[in-house]
């Protein structure tokens, strides 16, 4: 379906300058741009000349003039030919339709007429832009979850939202690869912000795509949080400290280090351990870490953090819950470095092997993740386009921000909850998962189990439990007799 057929031709006419930007040795940069600028009055002279020829001038810029005209006028003035073309309005939504435009015919002549000589260097019909990204994800034909609604539904956050608890007033910080300004975030009205770790650059880009994607999981569970993403440079510990310095109520971290086989913590990780201990025990921040995807993950293995593993929810109900199975993509393990420490504490939603393709998340268009998983062939690819700004992924990278969202709901309901109490509430309210095995081969089963810890988080049960917790000041207890 062609949504629009533009009868008029839209153009850019480049004003003649002493040095042409079309010269073979020309390469525009921020430093040399002014070398290609025409003399001050020439743009106005060119625009006047174009208007006298019945072109409609829309804008007179430093380097070019924007305008439009009937196709016939363009062809007669410049002695050329154009042809009609169409392209999708959005690569993400072909169902929206196509837009038509005029384009130069290859090998057709093009001549600047005498009355524009010295005023106009070249002129080009303009094609409409492709809208690579959309706040709506593309449709894919396999079982998956969409943000925010499906993730909120399965984690039972929806009834919490209906009771007015949405994470309002709670600051959540997340160190990660970057936080691109994807339209998904403003279209949903989310307070999504980004800052740089002191050794990072380009606050608005996320060339890998991970941070932009996984942040959506937090908002799915707690839509009204105040969010700040801290873009990492080369030092993850510095990024963690930068986030911690903002004194958020909750931090989520979808990364770590694989310490398989080690019985002591490598020295280079001691600073990160110290920073985590400071955040939890001195600043009272609830710190969530992904359990890993087969990794023996640090800092998830630290007893002070909330370690979040993975559970897969099928489409169908069994009894009064979805059919739940331990994700064979997510880690579970007993730490050799922290005696008695089992990972995970609780679980979020994670896909299954081979690729864990499960939750449709926004990414910077054409970033690494957008490209790497694109194309046909589920379950090895996500069947989205490589430049549409959406990817279907998960991993425990998704689970930790989901947990952070649940923590944010609890912190709105009861701001005084300590990190330890938040963890205890989540563990006490989780849903049992009795089937499946983790990536490390540990089994799920009745009660708390090796694969899933206490099980899949239940935001509503956690809220109902947490809202009634009475936090006692030990100094108000009666003195001993």
């Amino acid at each position, binding site marked *: 379906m062609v949504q629009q057929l533009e009868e008029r031709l839209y153009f850019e006419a480049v004003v003649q300058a002493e040095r042409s930007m079309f010269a073979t040795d020309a390469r525009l940069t921020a430093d040399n741009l002014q070398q290609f600028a025409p003399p001050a009055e020439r743009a106005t002279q060119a625009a006047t000349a174009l208007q006298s020829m019945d072109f409609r001038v829309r804008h007179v810029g430093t380097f070019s003039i924007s305008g439009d005209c009937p196709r016939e006028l363009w062809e007669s003035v410049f002695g050329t030919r154009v042809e009609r073309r169409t392209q999708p309005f959005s690569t993400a939504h072909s169902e929206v339709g196509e837009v038509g435009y005029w384009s130069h015919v290859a090998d057709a002549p093009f001549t600047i007429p005498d009355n524009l000589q010295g005023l106009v260097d070249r002129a080009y019909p303009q094609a409409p832009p492709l809208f690579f990204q959309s706040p709506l994800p593309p449709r894919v034909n396999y079982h998956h979850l969409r943000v925010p609604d499906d993730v909120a539904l399965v984690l039972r956050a929806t009834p919490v939202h209906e009771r007015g608890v949405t994470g309002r007033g709670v600051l959540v910080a997340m160190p990660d690869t970057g936080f691109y300004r994807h339209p998904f975030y403003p279209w949903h009205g989310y307070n999504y912000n980004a800052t740089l770790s002191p050794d990072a650059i380009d606050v608005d880009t996320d060339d890998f795509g991970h941070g932009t994607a996984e942040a959506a999981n937090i908002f799915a569970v707690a839509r009204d949080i105040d969010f700040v993403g801290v873009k990492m440079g080369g030092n993850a510990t510095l990024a963690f400290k930068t986030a911690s310095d903002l004194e958020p109520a909750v931090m989520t971290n979808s990364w770590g280090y694989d310490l398989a086989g080690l019985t002591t913590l490598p020295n280079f990780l001691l*600073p990160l351990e*110290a920073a985590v201990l400071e955040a939890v025990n001195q600043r009272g921040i609830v710190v969530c870490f992904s359990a890993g995807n087969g990794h023996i*993950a640090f800092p998830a293995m630290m007893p002070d953090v909330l370690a979040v593993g993975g559970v897969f929810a099928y489409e169908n109900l069994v009894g009064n819950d979805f059919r739940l199975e331990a994700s064979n993509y997510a880690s579970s393990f007993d730490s050799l470095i922290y005696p008695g420490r089992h990972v995970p504490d609780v679980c979020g939603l994670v896909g299954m092997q081979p690729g864990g393709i499960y939750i449709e998340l926004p990414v910077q268009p054409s970033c*690494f993740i957008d490209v790497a998983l694109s194309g046909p062939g589920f379950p090895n690819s996500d069947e989205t386009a490589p430049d549409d700004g959406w990817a279907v992924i998960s991993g425990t990278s998704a689970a930790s921000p989901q947990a952070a969202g649940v923590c944010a709901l609890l912190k709105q309901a009861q701001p005084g909850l300590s990190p330890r109490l938040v963890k205890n509430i989540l563990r006490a309210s989780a849903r049992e998962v009795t089937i499946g095995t983790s990536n490390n081969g540990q089994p799920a089963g009745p009660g708390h189990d090796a694969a899933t810890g206490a099980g899949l988080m239940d935001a509503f049960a956690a809220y109902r439990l947490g809202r009634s917790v009475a936090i006692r000041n030990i100094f108000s207890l009666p003195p001993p007799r």
Partner: protein
Amino acid sequence: MQDLVSAEVAPASNRAIDAARALEQLGFRVLHIGPTISVRGPAALWTSTFNVPFERRTKRRAREMEGSEVAYLAARTEQLQIPAELQDMVMAVMFQEPPEFFSTG
């Protein structure tokens, strides 16, 4: 273009500010002072100051994603020496490696 390397420096008790100042005077850039001091500097400066050579390595940002490798300079710390002017203030120097990100691929 210089190869910049990051490290976390553990200061002696109550000497964090002194250590940070001394590191800056040696040409390092102090990015954060907390339980440890986040420091960044050219690889050559680390080598000349602390006797630490480097070797280029790569690491996957996501284990499951081919092509997600990131390059970094790994420190060889077997011969690391804290120079005399820092010995009262600096307990340890710990060079950082890039983390892995736990998403699917």
